[in-house]
């Protein structure tokens, strides 16, 4: 038997996600809707002797879609053949904005959906001075009303008890204006099985993507024949509903003084202050980057130490041979290179999710819109851009709540410039190599350098947007409207789930690629195309017969690497990377990074372990990648491979180049266009090459 499907529907900021977490506990997963990468949260609840499939829909104010997110909601709720089509819809509301939620509830019911009505955030009833006559509301909505507080878990049991509820039909809350009656009658003939309101929805939307082409055309013909304006129809519906619901609620809801909005207002006076607001925002950003760099230090040191111990242990306990070598220098080194950066990724996601939960994020949108508009972006671009500081993949997806198609495209095109956590490992390693660990005015200089790299990402994003803004033509006029929710202390359950989802997702996705590439690299480094690789010992002995045993082994190893597949590939691309100040070993790192940037560090670990694996037992310190890279000599110049000039050049290259297959794939999906994906990849990588070239040639 199919599991009963339960869907959570509601406005943004009503605590829907907290409720979802309460219902499903940790029994949930985050995936994508088929075909498009809109985040889908679904989970299982076992109760009432059965198991329910629970889906948390993206927050929406109305069933008329304004953005991709909202289109998903309409597509699921309007299509009985959709696999997520609910057996029961839970409309989630909060006390203050209950009217908006009732309008959404009416829309859902008139599509033909059975629904119950949940008033969440009951704790706010008192502080917001609201009284609701539940019995009257229940008879108005013709369904069960459940009061919950998802944060404390109050009311959840009562909610679970009514999940099998089958409320009677609820229709005719919308009096269709007489001037629309005739077109509506015509449209009804096209959809004999649909409810009247569903037909109205079809008619009042500019384009209903899920309908067959001929139905879309027929709807368009009706709209043209009667000169219907979809915007106007939606506004008319909104007005009628507002009026009738207000009238109906006048006896049901009593409002008194409101303590909480006073509190929010006084906080906003500071956080939205024309000067102080910006100082605090940039101060917070600076704090985040200092935190990423300095708080994570001890954790990273212990992870580093742990992997050094694992390596030493495996080396001592396993027999020598190619498989042991693959395990230690391919797999363990590669995984270690990524696990070490988890603390930083967690810190970044913690801050982002904290800002989202408290309601501060939309204040940032408010503060930044004015400054992003000239670049062709929108205040809402702040969220993709800031999430881009974690990972471009969810960030590009976050752009879907931008209503204007052009602003959305621009945001997606420039978001990958933002310094994502995959760049962090590379920046940290290179900054540690070329910037001294001193402090200026109490600030860690390496932290400042990292901050500069983040600024560079932002500048790259904005300037590119400015250029692209001139090129792309706009179809629709731009507008912006968003809610600033009241401040709340964060629901730590949400923060923790969010941080866990994002960082484990990153670790698994990146881990898969790194594991694969580490193995490929190991194979390429341990086999060669000709006998020079296999006869290395004899050739070296012949050339320099007087070497000590130790020197001989080292010479053989480096001769072997030079003549392995990996060595030949690295040398093959050397002419292209030499002007940027890199040698062939760094070239290998660069190539492997085109799969994903974070691979660089893992690759370097593999490349350099092969380079001097004889030394590994000698000195425990040499185990760490950093000291290995520090002592590395550039084969072309004879200078340290990671000096100031080549370091800056590498930093610039990684700052701008599009080196992430997953991002390319997501951009392709979200833009639906190979053209824009290709333009983006070429633009970014070209810019990276030129910037790195200029920097190295000036600094060397």
């Amino acid at each position: 038997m199919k599991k009963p499907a339960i869907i959570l529907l509601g406005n943004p900021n009503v605590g829907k996600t907290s409720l979802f977490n309460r219902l499903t506990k940790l029994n949930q997963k985050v995936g994508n809707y088929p075909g498009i990468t809109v985040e889908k949260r679904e989970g299982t609840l076992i109760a009432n002797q059965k198991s329910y499939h629970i889906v948390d829909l993206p927050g929406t104010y109305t069933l008329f879609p304004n953005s991709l997110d909202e289109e998903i909601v309409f597509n699921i709720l309007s299509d009985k053949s959709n696999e997520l089509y609910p057996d029961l819809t839970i409309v989630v509301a909060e006390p203050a904005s209950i009217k908006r939620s009732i309008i959404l509830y009416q829309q859902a019911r008139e599509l033909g959906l059975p629904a119950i009505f949940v008033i969440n955030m009951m704790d706010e009833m008192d502080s917001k001075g609201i009284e609701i006559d539940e019995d009257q509301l229940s008879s108005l909505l013709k369904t069960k009303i459940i009061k919950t507080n998802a944060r404390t878990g109050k009311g959840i049991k009562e909610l679970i008890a009514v999940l099998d509820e089958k409320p009677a039909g609820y229709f005719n809350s919308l009096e269709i204006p007489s001037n629309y009656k005739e077109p509506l009658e015509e449209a009804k003939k096209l959809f004999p099985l649909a409810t009247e309101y569903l037909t109205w929805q079809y008619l009042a939307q500019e384009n209903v993507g899920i309908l067959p082409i001929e139905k879309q055309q027929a709807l368009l013909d009706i709209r043209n024949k009667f000169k219907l304006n979809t915007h106007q129809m939606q506004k008319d519906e909104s007005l009628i509903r507002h009026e009738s619901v207000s009238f109906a609620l006048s006896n049901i809801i009593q409002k008194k003084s409101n303590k909480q909005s006073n509190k929010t207002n006084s906080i906003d006076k500071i956080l939205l202050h024309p000067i102080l607001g910006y100082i605090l925002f940039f101060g917070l950003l600076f704090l985040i980057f200092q935190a990423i760099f300095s708080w994570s230090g001890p954790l990273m040191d212990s992870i580093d130490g742990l992997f050094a111990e694992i390596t030493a242990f495996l080396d001592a306990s396993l027999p020598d041979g190619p498989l042991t070598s693959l395990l230690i220098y391919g797999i363990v080194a590669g995984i270690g290179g990524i696990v070490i950066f988890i603390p930083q990724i967690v810190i970044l996601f913690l801050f982002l999710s904290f800002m989202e939960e408290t309601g501060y994020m939309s204040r940032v949108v408010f503060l930044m819109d004015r400054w992003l508009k000239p670049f062709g972006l929108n205040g809402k671009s702040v969220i993709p851009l800031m999430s881009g500081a974690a990972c471009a993949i969810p960030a590009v997806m976050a752009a879907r709540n931008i209503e204007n198609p052009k602003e959305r495209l621009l945001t997606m095109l420039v978001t990958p410039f933002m310094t994502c956590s995959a760049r962090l490992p590379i920046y940290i390693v290179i900054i540690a190599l070329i910037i001294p660990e001193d402090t200026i005015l109490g600030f860690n200089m390496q932290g400042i350098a990292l901050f500069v790299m983040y600024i560079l990402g932002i500048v790259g994003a904005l300037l590119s947007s400015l250029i692209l803004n001139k090129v792309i033509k706009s179809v629709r006029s731009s507008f912006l409207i968003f809610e600033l929710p009241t401040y709340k202390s964060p629901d730590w359950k949400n923060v923790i789930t969010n941080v866990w989802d994002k960082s484990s997702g990153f670790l698994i996705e990146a881990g898969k690629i790194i594991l694969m590439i580490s193995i490929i690299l190991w194979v390429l480094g341990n086999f060669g195309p000709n006998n020079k690789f296999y006869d290395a010992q004899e050739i070296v002995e012949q050339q320099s017969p007087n070497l000590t045993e130790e020197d001989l082994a080292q010479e053989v190893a480096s001769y072997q690497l030079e003549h392995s597949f990996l060595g030949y590939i690295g040398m093959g691309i050397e002419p292209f990377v030499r002007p940027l100040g890199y040698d062939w070993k760094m070239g290998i790192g660069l190539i492997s990074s085109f799969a994903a940037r974070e691979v660089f560090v893992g690759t370097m670990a593999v490349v350099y372990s092969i380079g001097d694996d004889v030394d590994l037992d000698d000195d425990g310190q040499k185990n760490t990648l950093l000291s290995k890279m520090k002592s590395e000599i550039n084969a072309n110049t004879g200078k340290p491979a990671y000096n100031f000039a080549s370091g800056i050049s590498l930093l610039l290259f990684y700052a701008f180049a599009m080196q992430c297959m997953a991002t390319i794939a997501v951009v392709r999906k979200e833009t639906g266009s190979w053209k824009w994906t290709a333009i983006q990849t070429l633009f970014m990588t070209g810019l990276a090459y030129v910037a790195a070239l200029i920097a190295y040639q000036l600094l060397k």
Partner: protein
Amino acid sequence: MQYNSSLDQLKIGEIVKINEIQSTEIPAKFFELGFYPGSIVEVKHKAPFNGPICLNILESNTLIAIRKSEAKLIQAEYIK
């Protein structure tokens, strides 16, 4: 004393009733979030250099921000 004004001209703290919205370009989302004829709003915050303005929709007691360019198209009358 002027009794009518578009929303972008208002000062912080002024309370007005929306009369009409002068553009078919403005999407229905504005209506849904509380900018419809008859709705009473109070200006709460303004971002500097002609940035967005934030209004309190009195009926639902929610804070909604819009750009000045759209605020200019919304006509309102002062209420005492």
